[in-house]
């Protein structure tokens, strides 16, 4: 069964004077996916997200949200309710309290008055700001402000969530909290497009990724297929005995691509072409010839390594 497309763009282009920020992007994101957008600074990620949020008008091209054409005028109030957009600078009103701010946006999004109060409590609970609901926004920490902005973005239960660098400038604990919230939102069925330079976060959250460079979307695929296509399987092997014997044995194995030896930890990192069964065969063989193997585990190349390996040339 074909899954519905939450976001579809056709030839999406944005030009600022002589500079083409986004060039003919054809993007397709399935409903319910968490899609990570990566690329160096200036690659066009923010402009693409702004156009998807209808905060910026495309020079040419079309955007469809759940099959409906997105236009930047007054004709699409229903479509606007389906979108939630969190920019990287998240400006807020310092003079309002947390509750008043969310109540104001809940009303702007025309949330029914019978459900509004409960929705505010739910959202405050989700972003863990219940204790701060009567505090002035001016007095919140950066992490709290970031979470409040996210609360504002999801107050109307959008179907599509567009997050531009949502974890930039956050400390590790705030980042973990933020990741957990995104996971909850995904479980609630939202489609999430997230751009970030923290690729480890994206690897944990995303089901698909797109790579942008010089305004083009140069890669767009599921994370699994990217790992399969670009990521090499690695096996970390440690021995209590002589490393040279282990290395000599590995070098004659036809499935071993390359080796990295660490004498201090007595560990060899093997770039292995085979699958899991062949890895098991290798382990059995090493043990059978009497090598004192005390650690043997498979790892996958991380997203950052794959991204760097793709060799895109644009400087940040």
């Amino acid at each position, binding site marked *: 069964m074909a899954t519905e497309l939450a976001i579809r763009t056709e030839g999406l*282009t944005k*030009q*600022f*004077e002589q500079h*083409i920020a986004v*060039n*003919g992007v054809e993007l397709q994101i399935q409903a319910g996916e968490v899609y990570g957008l990566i690329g160096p600074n200036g690659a066009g990620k923010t402009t693409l997200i702004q156009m998807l*949020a*209808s*905060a910026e*008008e495309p*020079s*040419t091209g079309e955007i469809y949200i759940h099959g409906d054409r997105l236009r*930047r*005028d*007054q004709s699409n*109030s*229903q479509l*606007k*309710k389906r*979108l939630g*957009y969190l*920019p990287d*600078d998240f*400006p*807020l*009103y310092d*003079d*309002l309290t947390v509750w*008043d701010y969310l*109540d*104001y*946006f809940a*009303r*702007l*999004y*025309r949330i029914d*008055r019978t459900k509004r109060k409960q929705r505010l409590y739910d959202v405050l609970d989700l972003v863990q700001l219940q204790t701060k609901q009567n505090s002035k926004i001016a007095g919140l920490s950066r992490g709290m402000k970031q979470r409040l902005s996210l609360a*504002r973005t999801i107050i109307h239960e959008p179907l599509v969530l567009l997050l531009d660098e949502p974890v930039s400038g956050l400390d590790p604990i705030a980042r973990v909290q933020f990741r957990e919230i995104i996971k909850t939102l995904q479980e609630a069925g939202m489609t999430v497009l997230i751009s970030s330079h923290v690729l480890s976060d994206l690897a944990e959250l995303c089901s698909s990724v797109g790579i942008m460079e010089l305004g*083009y979307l140069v890669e767009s695929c599921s994370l699994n297929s990217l790992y399969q296509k670009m990521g090499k399987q690695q096996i970390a092997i440690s021995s209590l005995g002589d490393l040279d014997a282990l290395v000599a044995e590995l070098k004659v194995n036809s499935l071993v691509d390359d080796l990295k030896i660490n004498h201090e930890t007595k560990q060899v990192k093997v770039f292995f072409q085979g699958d899991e069964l062949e890895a098991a065969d290798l382990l059995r063989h090493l043990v059978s010839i009497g090598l004192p193997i005390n650690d043997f585990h498979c790892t996958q190349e991380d997203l950052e390594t794959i991204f760097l390996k793709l060799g895109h040339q644009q400087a940040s």
Partner: protein
Amino acid sequence: MLNNLLDRIGEYNPQLMREIKSRMSWRNVIIMTFVSFMAQLMVLVSQATKLPEMTTKRNHYYGQYCFYTPNVNYSLSGCKVDAAGLPVIDWLKWWNDTALGLSAVMAVGLIAGGVYLLASNFSQEERRGTLNFIRLTPQQASSVIGGKILGVPLLVYIGTALALPLQFHAVQQANLSKSGILGWDILMSSLAILLYLGAVLATMWFKAQSILLAGIAMSLSYPLVYVSTMWYDPSNHRHINWYGLKLGNGLFSYLLLSGVTAAGIYWLYQALQRRYLKPTATVLSKKQSYLWSAMYHAGMAGFAVFGLGSVRLPLGLDRDYMVSPITSIFSFAWLLLLIPLLLPSQQSLVEWSRQRPVSNKKGRSLLADLTIHEKSPAMLAVVINIAIAVAVWLPLILIGNNGFWHLMPKILLGITMTTALAIIYSTITHWVLFWKVNQRYAWMTGVVGSLVFLPVIFGVVLSTGGGNKHEIPFLFSPFLWTSLEATSGFISLIICAFLVCVAAGLNLKLWRGLNKVGRSESFKNFKAKSA
């Protein structure tokens, strides 16, 4: 109770609720109450100082609110006094002037205060990027803009409302019509809304400074308030003619002023809504400008028509009556205003030129593009707007002034020269868009401003020494109508031909430039896609 009220307001207009919550505090209300009562006190004190005073020299009372005893020797005359020897004061007149003075202070305070607060609020929201979030919500532009206009100057409204009891008391004491003052207050409120919308538009359009806008609004509101007080001041016998109708103190004048204000509010709101929804859009669409021009010129023509068969010649050729040069200046000021209102952004022009071949293939003609399309250059639209002005004015001139048929060639020459000048100015603004400079709009104003005023300054400087007016420099400026009649037909024709050639040359160059930009952009995209 207040919370319930706020909640209800928030159901109807969330923006208004947000603005009220942000501003309504006891501290703010107390400060505004103090300011309002101080202003009222100052008006009363200022009026009190004008009451008759005893002159020590002659032992008489003098002052502007006296009933004077008739005396052949003026220097010996003084205020009429009662049995107790105190002057009899014309309280009716005193309260009349107090009512007028207080009304003027209220109106100017309302306008200047509101303009400042609204302009600074919008510029702050734009600068911080918070307005973008509101734009992304499903709220209509009217709800957001309306909420801000009602809510941001809330304290100014409170301060003005606190002066209403004194205003009504003064009106009652002066025996002025109560419905009259009510109507005047409504008119002033509409005028304030008109200027509020103008200020917000200026802030969103060219990021004008709020304090500057408040200053402009204040200086604009003084003459407007002065003219408006004529309506409910029974002692006023001045009037302005409009299509043969006398506009002075009367219901019709009030209705007409209200109509003009309402039309102004409508058009400003249209422009504001366009900029709110699309910050890169032109302030007016080309179609809107045609309708606006027709309304404007039909309105202005009214000041030149003194009844059937009696039309004063507009465009400055008739110097016997001051309304005509004024309408002429206003007409060109209107044209100069239209040029930036219709100017597309540089990006729009590039996109239009790039997509032009595609539009052509789809069957959209170049003419349709230039007259209607929002991203196309605006020169033809400016010409159409001039044609609308001519269509309104020319029949009036010819029907109403049989003696002016002999001036027809010069009138046509003047129209051609005006059109050429407008095209030159408009084309130059399009050119400046492509300059690699900061503050393009400042450059535009500078260059076009120089072209408008330098010939006039030159003409005035030449004329000051010799005694005779040197007419020729004026023919290179929008003030050409003041000199056209006195210049020989041959020289006028030469200058007209020169201006037409310059306009054509500039347009040809701009056209080639746009084609080149469009082609190179298409080529760049094509090359990048095939790479």
